[in-house]
């Protein structure tokens, strides 16, 4: 019973202390920084606080991250408003199309078409890695072959046996 009373009194005192004392900008800034550090998405965000107005800046990976960061900061005690100067990083370029190519029938046909004029070469078939091509070829011919395969987005399988003239 005694303990409860003391706890209540302490809680009351704390409440009074918080309502009567205006939070200092530096303290608010520290609280925001702690909150930001706890969130891996917002860890690199910079913050500055003046008269309770928090200004955040940095590079976010997307709009959702930017909005989330603002929400996080606005929820910190002592923050009146948030100026969100965060920028969104441009999306990374899409991966090269050749990385997702499958050796479907149309792709195989492109290789067959391309080889029609390379009469010294024979297509043995396709593996999981690319086209298996055997034959004899000149240096210039090798480049043409590689260019043809690249335009079809097909690798030359290492099992290919191509000798250079």
């Amino acid at each position: 019973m005694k303990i409860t009373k003391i706890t209540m009194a302490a809680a009351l005192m704390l409440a009074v202390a918080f309502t009567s004392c205006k939070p200092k900008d530096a303290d608010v800034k520290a609280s925001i920084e702690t909150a930001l550090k706890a969130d891996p998405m917002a860890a690199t965000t910079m913050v500055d606080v003046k008269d309770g107005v928090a200004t955040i800046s940095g590079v976010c990976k997307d709009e959702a991250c930017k909005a989330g960061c603002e929400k996080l900061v606005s929820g910190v005690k002592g923050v009146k408003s948030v100026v969100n100067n965060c920028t969104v990083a441009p999306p990374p370029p899409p991966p090269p199309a050749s990385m997702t190519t499958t050796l479907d029938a149309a792709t195989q046909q492109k290789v067959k078409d391309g080889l029609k004029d390379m009469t010294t070469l024979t297509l043995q078939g396709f593996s999981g890695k690319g086209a298996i091509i055997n034959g004899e070829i000149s240096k210039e011919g090798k480049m043409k072959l590689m260019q043809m395969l690249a335009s079809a987005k097909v690798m030359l399988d290492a099992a290919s046996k191509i000798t250079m003239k």
Partner: protein
Amino acid sequence: MALQDKYAELIAAAKSHGVANLSVAEQDGVLHVAGTAGSTATYDALWALYDKLDPGMASGDLMMNVDIKADAGAQLQVTTDSSNLNIRATPSTDGDVVGKAAHGETVTLVEKTDDSWWKVRTADGEEGYAYAQYLSPL
């Protein structure tokens, strides 16, 4: 990263030549380089560099999926070894031959159907699909 080091000169050249939409990524021991070269000269220079950095292009560790910028209406030179280039009704060697373009002749690009087949129009007005490997944007 080792492959990016091996082909660093090539990647730097692609950047300095202003290859558009350049992307470089490594997957399963193969470096994939994709983009659009502004001219046939740039394309040829990049392939020459590939041959220099990987003699005979023997390692099979680079997929250079770089094409050459060509918009509809662009002039293309027929770069067969010596023979005529077949112009076909459909984008396949199974397509009927509807016209021919001579070695060295200039044709007009109608559309890039895909990376391998382009629709072209000859000076005589014949229109159809030709194998893109033998067409170089001027």
